């Protein structure tokens, strides 16, 4: 297992390094003097100077890069010159909100996806299987901005049972926070849950058709045990990989869902950063999100290897 980690780690680090360099290059790709173009046409010389100072634009590129990475590693990102406040605090707040949203969505993905997959593959009721097929097709076909609008119209406007947007910190008032969290998490989770459900259903159906299941059936093992102890372990590893990929998509999708539901997370912060041209904040955020994604992929690969002995011993 450790050797597997050692094998996977270099390529993950390589991707991370390349991504950080690309993100670092973003500002330097903007034509003209970055500080002036960032500050905008109406900026005072003081602002331009502040930006120049914050970015260390007078230093050589390599040391700028080193300084940037260093500041990320220490967590001391300095003050934001456009949004206001300490960047580390801004990101910290946003990170909490986004993590909360992503985790809640992940929970929905796992619960709904597993239910869709297992029931879709094994339910004897034709009705349930059709219902799941229709639901997953619909969930897959609805972009989050469509399903988000529909959810708001239905639950907030027509029924009036849930708030249309905003956030309450979870530990302040858990029940209220849950009400605010429900719609965005569901909206974020639906497409991934449908993908997972489909994939799991196909995987179970394929696993149940394998020769080894025929062997076990011929040995007199009961159908329920066949599903849980024989078919599922074989069907699970690729599903875990998919789940890892979907977690990445949740991170990416959160940016959009936060915009729809006015959820004050990293996505909203990024949007603000882009609008106010506070690109350093955007850079920090991008690298953070990419790093999170790469780490999730790595963890996924490890879990996959742990579940599938063939990889472990390769």
């Amino acid at each position, binding site marked *: 297992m450790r050797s597997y980690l050692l094998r996977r780690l270099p390529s993950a680090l390589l991707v991370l390094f390349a991504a950080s360099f690309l993100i670092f290059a973003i500002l330097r790709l903007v034509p003209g003097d970055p500080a002036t173009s960032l500050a905008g046409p109406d900026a005072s010389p003081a602002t331009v100077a502040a930006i120049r100072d914050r970015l260390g634009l007078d230093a050589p590129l390599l040391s700028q890069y080193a300084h940037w990475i260093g500041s990320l590693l220490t967590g001391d990102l300095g003050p934001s010159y456009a949004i206001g406040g300490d960047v580390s605090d801004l990101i910290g707040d946003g990170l909490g909100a986004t993590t909360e949203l992503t985790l809640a969505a992940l929970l929905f993905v796992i619960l709904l996806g597993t239910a869709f997959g297992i029931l879709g593959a094994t339910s004897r009721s034709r009705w349930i299987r059709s219902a799941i097929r229709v639901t997953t097709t619909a969930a897959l076909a609805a*972009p989050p901005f469509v399903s988000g609008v529909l959810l708001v119209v239905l639950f907030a406007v027509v029924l009036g049972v849930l708030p249309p947007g905003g956030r309450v910190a979870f530990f302040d008032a858990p029940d209220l926070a849950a009400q605010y969290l429900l719609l965005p998490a569901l909206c974020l989770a639906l497409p991934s849950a449908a993908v997972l459900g489909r994939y799991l259903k196909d995987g179970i159906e394929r696993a149940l058709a394998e020769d080894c299941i025929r062997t076990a059936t011929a040995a007199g093992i009961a159908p329920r045990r066949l599903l849980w102890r024989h078919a599922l372990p074989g069907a699970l590893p690729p599903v875990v990989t998919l789940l890892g990929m979907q977690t990445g998509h949740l991170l990416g999708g959160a940016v959009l869902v936060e915009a729809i539901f006015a959820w004050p997370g990293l996505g909203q912060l990024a949007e603000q950063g882009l609008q106010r041209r506070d690109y350093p904040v955007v850079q920090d955020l991008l690298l953070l999100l990419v790093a999170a994604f790469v780490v999730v992929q790595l963890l996924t690969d490890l879990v996959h290897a742990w579940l599938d002995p063939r990889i472990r011993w390769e």
Partner: protein
Amino acid sequence: MTPTPDLAPASPEALPDSLRKPVGARKAVRPRHPYRAALSTARARTGLVLVGVVVLAGLLAPVLAGHGPTDQSGQSLAALGTPGHPLGTDDLGRDLLSRVLYGIRADLGIIAIAVPLGAALGCLFALAAAAHPVADTLVQRVFDLILAFPGLILALAVTAILGPGRLPVVLVIALAEIPAFGRLLRGGILVQREREYVTAARVGGSSGPRVLVRHILPNAADPLIVQIAVSLTVAVFIEGAMSFLGVGVRPPEPTLGSVLSQSMPYLDQAPHFAAGPLITVTALVLGLSLIAEALNRETRR
């Protein structure tokens, strides 16, 4: 001895086939082309009709729309069925039907450039990867790098460089499609290349390029057809999402995503504002998904 399946698809052949006598297959079964079979299923037909109606409406926008997409009339947020504004008007008094129709047109324009561009680049990368192991490693890392920017994070990164507008939308869609097409084709080529019929073609004297074009690619390209349908839906997703984030096509030009995102603040007082783009996007994406699913089912057989 290689196992002979006992009850695999029955051999469509039972005429005597003695050593000396020439024999022939039972019927002139010209296998139906899988794509044509897939597209004639009920599922695919529904999809084709949905997509066809939306595309046609977009193409005919100048004929069908009663107003320019940015013309403002006096009345803002007019209700459904207002004379001259069958879908009502938006917050600035612009005719919603016209905005939706021109929005489709704008989306189609973006998608028609972005998806083929992404597909072509992805396929080029795949061909390069198939050519040499070093190129393969390089291409694989490029794909990994693009994939490390999941979904809209890529959109944020690209707009950080270029600022909002039509070009970044096209680029983001194209970039997102590159690894999808590239990985599929690369995988297909690698699998097909090991097949015995390819060895047979090489031993039969066919040159390298001929083996690639005549033997490998036709068999490796199957999943790409499905991917095109999937990519079209992804493109609609990305366009809409970027509009929602305010980094898409610049206002006042309408796109499906921007009209929908503009309706958000008015959902409680004028829900019909959202209806037009909502129905159009849903029809388009649902139609494309149905086609993709039908193709997928048929080609997987």
